[in-house]
């Protein structure tokens, strides 16, 4: 059977609710199943990759640390939406791992080119 390509589109910021963490768990599990996973961070989600995160006082797991493990799970196609990053004043050098910018038209094409799309 032809392998299905999965696209995960994340839209939520870390910590304020469980969505970002739950989405990362889906990404890691899908990758562990051998599925090719691409990740796009839109809206509030680019902040997930900021290496400056220190969530100890709010007793949460550092989501940047979880994100930094993504390449070990062969999740290397990681994109952040250009406009979302601009609005949040996020630059690539602030991130825990290499990511590429993608604009809205690029996201539309990515949706078309993947077999399964999950949004969180």
């Amino acid at each position, binding site marked *: 059977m032809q392998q*299905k390509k999965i696209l995960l589109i994340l839209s939520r910021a870390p910590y304020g609710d469980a*969505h970002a963490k*739950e989405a990362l768990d889906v990404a890691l*599990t899908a990758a562990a*199943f051998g*599925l090719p996973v691409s990740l796009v961070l839109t809206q509030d989600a680019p902040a997930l990759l900021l290496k400056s995160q220190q969530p100890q006082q709010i007793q949460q797991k550092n989501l940047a640390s979880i994100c930094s493990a993504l390449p070990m799970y062969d999740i290397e196609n990681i994109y952040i939406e250009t406009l979302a990053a601009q609005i949040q004043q996020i630059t690539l050098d602030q991130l825990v791992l290499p990511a590429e910018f993608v604009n809205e038209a690029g996201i539309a094409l990515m949706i078309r080119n993947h077999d399964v799309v999950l949004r969180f």
Partner: protein
Amino acid sequence: MLFSILIYGSAHNSQSAHTAYRFADSALKAGHKIHRIFFYGESVHTASELSAPPRDEQNIHQLWKELAQAHELDLVVCIAAALKRGVMDKAEAKRHEKGSFNSQAPYELSGLGQLSEAAIISDRLITFGA
């Protein structure tokens, strides 16, 4: 067509579990098959049989249970999301040394891998979001 359904909306504070139910019911009536229903995030509360809504209100736990029994559906509840929120079956209650449990068949606690497997096996995976 073989469908799987991911329910991600809150069981009692969002319409999504019921929209998903209507979708599943319609798909079955049209002769399609459903490989799996996967409850994730806040939707895991759907699996709690201790939910007791007023008689004249929708009972989402019961609706899914009856549909599952009528069509032998695979109702899988994400185990990590469920345990965290106090939704557990007898085996998990024992493992975690809890005095009671609130979930049983046809709801089944299992890992997120069941969602990946559903994505691989099914012709369509449709999400009903928060």
